């Protein structure tokens, strides 16, 4: 697993220049101004780095190469989900740090923000990754845009609910649990897709 993650780190290091700037801007805006768009973008930008590694892997033929190396296919999938989870947690941490330092967030804001980021990130990965493993990054682009729009719409409703005082506290617990279940199911589905995947080439 470390080998595959290290490879992704090398890729991200080379493709993160402008992305790091975007991450910094949205993390700052999310922590200072709040708002769904900023929060979503602060989660999306680090995740996009993970997506970029998938695109490069498929384009370069690394996905096939890795499957001929002594890595199990499950491990190839696992490393991508671990990376995505790392990106989500990192974005939550960064936004929280800025929010606490700059805006002195209250505990409710801290939780609602973290939940919004985690739920959005987890669902985004959960829906897109199996599609990318199945159809490839290029062909999944349309789905990816549709998923993005759908999640933004659902997210805006969700965010207003989360920020309202009348929101039952159990929702704050239920939503992350639901997204963890979805994330796990997505991982298992991707493993199953990858196990049967054939690399017949162009």
């Amino acid at each position: 697993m470390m080998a595959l993650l290290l490879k992704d780190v090398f890729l991200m290091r080379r493709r993160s220049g402008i992305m790091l700037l975007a991450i910094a801007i949205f993390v700052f805006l999310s922590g200072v101004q709040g708002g769904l768009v900023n929060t979503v973008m602060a989660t999306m930008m680090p995740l996009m780095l993970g997506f970029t590694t998938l695109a490069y892997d498929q384009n370069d033929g690394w996905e096939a190469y890795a499957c001929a190396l002594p890595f199990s296919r499950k491990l190839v999938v696992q490393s991508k989900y671990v990376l995505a989870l790392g990106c989500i947690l990192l974005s939550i941490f960064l936004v929280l740090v800025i929010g606490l330092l700059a805006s002195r967030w209250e505990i409710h804001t801290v939780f609602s923000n973290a939940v919004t980021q985690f739920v959005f990130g987890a669902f985004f990965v959960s829906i897109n990754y199996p599609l990318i493993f199945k159809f490839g990054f290029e062909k999944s682009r349309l789905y990816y845009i549709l998923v993005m729009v759908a999640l933004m719409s659902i997210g805006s409703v969700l965010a207003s609910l989360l920020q309202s005082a009348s929101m039952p506290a159990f929702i704050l617990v239920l939503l992350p649990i639901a997204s963890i279940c979805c994330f796990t199911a997505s991982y298992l589905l991707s493993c199953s897709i990858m196990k049967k995947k054939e690399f017949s080439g162009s």
Partner: protein
Amino acid sequence: MESAILCRKMKKTYGSFTLDIEDFKVATGTVHGLIGANGSGKTTTIKLLLGLLFPDSGELSVLGSSRIGNEAETRQHIGFIVDDASVPSLVTANELAAVLRRCYQHWDQGQYEMYLRQFQIDPKKQYRKYSKGMKVKLQLAVALSHHASLLILDEPTSGLDPLARDEIISILSEFSKDENHTILISSHITSDLEKLCDYVTFLEEGCIRFTEEKDELLETYRLGIVSHQMVADIDSDSIIAKREGSFQVELLLRTEDVPSFLESRRLSLEELIIFLSKGRSAV
């Protein structure tokens, strides 16, 4: 002799193409060449052997494993170069080594660096910036740096200049000296295979036409060149294949069937393959 690779009644269909291998063995300690035109099934065979494709039916065993696609442990002992599968374009040779030494149990960093020096590969340059030849050489360096006992190489010399091809053939030749080392190499550059291989398998339209010991194969046939009038003097049953030109006819005959009055010569592997694939229909 033990088999490093074994395929029996193996079928694989995708699209309109079907690979149908009745019986194919690569003995341990030998260099086995896979010859065939583009689209004959060489790459499909190699991808099946590396677990990148799964057979529809039949048996397949690589280093004793019948589930190579799902058995990562066996792949510790295999070095490979295969079409459409490559190292990440943005990593350098040094970074690649950092990844692969965490993947191969027997990664030999010294050997890898020795190959990088021998191939004059800049270890700090990104893979995408290498020439085609350099890319192949880097992949070969990887394949040779983890003490693999089996090399499965798909067209490793394709697109390379003669010097680079010769260098690669020499390295593979050196590797094959160890009796525990096996190489399966596909190529349509038959002159490379002629230098290197102990056995050759000829694939045509997804089927194996023959598997022969190379030297025996080249000794079995002779090329006779005769005028059109003289063809009638030769027993037609002994003509395996023929190619008619404007002034003369080239005949492929078994060595023992060559008449004493006929001048004949040994064929190169390339000539023989062309004759066997094209000339047979002309008899």
